[in-house]
């Protein structure tokens, strides 16, 4: 195995040998790897997820704290993305072949291919203090580009100052993540709605004398939503990947930021649990999506 975690816990110095041996046996690093893994699995089911090599706190405690911030970031940006994505997708579906459709689809595919970390870096440079744009445009805002609230406000406290500051710190990361995932959603929304628009019941709805807006809201959108929900659920792994990059760039101390730190210190209990959490997030997202679909589409039955 490359990288000996014990070295990251205890310095390689003879005078620490006793402590090191103790730590190795404490964390079970002296046992064969398969045995370590079986023990890990056993503990997984008994909700004992091990201690971090780093600060010896339970892995679950550390990650629960991080998870909150990651959920805030992913949640905000997903809601933002879905709302804007649906609006853009719907509008370009109606204006199919017109300039708006052409431009939004072009920009969409362009954004779709943009590495999220790079987008984050560019936005960070554009909105930092004394950015180039501030030289050109006097009212250009400077936004916080790192952390999730001002260091001077420590410790975290549920007062208006903290919440407002946390919101400010959330702006850029959420914007980056939204822009990075927006294109996929609006493109699929567009195609899905165009699909629905060719259905006969849409002609029926128009024949009833409904206005285009009514047709869209009552008949097209409700039928375009189910595929969107499945898609977003499928994409959750991708969105999480984006969130990781954003957290690293903006030093936003959620799970992604913690992952990079854990890699640096070879903190395997932490890393393993991060993967478990990631998988769980995807499973939970898909379960939620299934429930949502059940509600959105009467043709789906519990089997």
């Amino acid at each position, binding site marked *: 195995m490359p990288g000996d975690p014990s070295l990251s816990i205890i310095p390689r110095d003879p005078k620490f040998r006793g402590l090191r041996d103790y730590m190795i046996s404490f964390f079970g690093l002296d046992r064969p790897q398969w045995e370590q893994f079986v023990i890990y699995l056993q503990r997984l089911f008994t909700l004992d997820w091990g201690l971090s090599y780093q600060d010896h706190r339970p892995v679950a405690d550390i990650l629960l704290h991080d998870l909150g911030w990651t959920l805030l970031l992913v949640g905000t940006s997903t809601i933002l993305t879905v709302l804007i994505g649906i609006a853009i997708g719907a509008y370009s579906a109606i204006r199919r072949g017109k300039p708006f459709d052409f431009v939004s689809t072009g920009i969409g595919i362009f954004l779709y291919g943009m590495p999220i970390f790079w987008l984050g870096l560019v936005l960070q440079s554009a909105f930092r203090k004394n950015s180039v744009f501030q030289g050109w445009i006097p009212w250009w805002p400077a936004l916080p580009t790192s952390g999730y609230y001002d260091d001077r406000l420590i410790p975290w406290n549920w007062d208006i100052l903290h919440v407002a500051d946390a919101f400010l710190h959330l702006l850029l990361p959420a914007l980056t993540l939204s822009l990075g995932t927006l294109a996929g959603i609006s493109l699929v929304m567009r195609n899905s709605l165009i699909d629905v628009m060719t259905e006969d019941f849409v*002609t*029926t709805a*128009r024949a009833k*004398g409904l206005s285009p807006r009514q047709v869209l809201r*009552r*008949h097209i959108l*409700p039928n375009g939503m189910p595929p969107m929900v499945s898609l977003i659920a499928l994409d959750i792994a991708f969105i999480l990947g984006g969130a990781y990059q954003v957290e690293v760039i903006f030093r936003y101390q959620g799970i992604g930021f913690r992952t990079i730190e854990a890699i640096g210190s070879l903190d395997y209990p932490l890393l393993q649990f991060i993967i478990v959490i990631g998988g769980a997030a995807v499973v939970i997202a898909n379960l939620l999506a299934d429930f949502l679909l059940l509600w959105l589409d009467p043709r789906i039955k519990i089997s």
Partner: protein
Amino acid sequence: MAALLEVRDLTIEFTTKAGIVHAVEGASFDVERGEALGLAGESGCGKTTTALALMRLLPYNGRIVRGSISFAGRSLVPLEEASMRAIRWKEMSIVFQGAMNSLNPVQRVGRQIAEPIILHEDADSDVALKRAGDLLELVGISRNRLNDYPHEFSGGMRQRVMIAMALACDPKLVIADEPVTALDVMIQAQILDLLERLRRELDLAMILISHDLSVLADTCEQVTIMYAGKTMESGKTMDLFTDPKHPYTQGLVGAFPDIRGPRNMPEAIPGDVPSLISPPSGCVFHPRCKFAFDRCSNAEPELSELAPGRRAACFLYPEVTEVPGRSMPIATR
């Protein structure tokens, strides 16, 4: 008194990547109050397009280039969209082919039937739903099923729901576009009986569109035969069936086995409906016509009166004239 619906020289084109599709050219017909008109012809000959044009529901790439539609004294072609919306379903409604797709799959049928009532009659939803229940019973479905979704109905039942929906606002005219095509024969007969009964009870005018002449035979007073976007022949149903004038009509009538007559194998018309992007010169039917002669490929026959109420567009009859200015093939655009 003028007919309820008067269509004159209706001409519709679609712009596609491959070129301009001449979907309907010069369609003219009348529908009197309480009367049923049949539109017949093979698939892709412009029947559905005509129906959609009557309600001004052509897809975004289609447009009416020429002609007039006069409905209950109003001219529909120049009418602005808002006034047209007020006419749709209130005065003229439509039943589409294959009711599976014509009903919104994620909305309860009760709401779908009630929707136009709420929209056009300013009814509140309780009143509208009660009406929807009455309508379901009118077409032979229990009102308990108001809260069901379309997929919970069989094909024939869905078509009944569609018909109930079409009657929601007491329209003057109902267009039924291939209302029985996807259904099996027993259900076809039931639905046609239902349409016929409702038409008499409610004194509806109706346009019945089908590629199947036998569907039109018992229901319609008048029949118009279309081919490749053009009207080939029109007249009273009985006359047309017993003595078809146009070779195309003869082919269509011949294509159906006569269960009463001697057992002849139905005779198919050879060939396919031509491309509507570059239609054949002269009479559009001449490439498939066994009676075609020189004039047929050079000049276009005009739909001319052969007898009172009886018109055909075929040079086999001396009364038929040429369409002026179109004796040479139109340059392909």
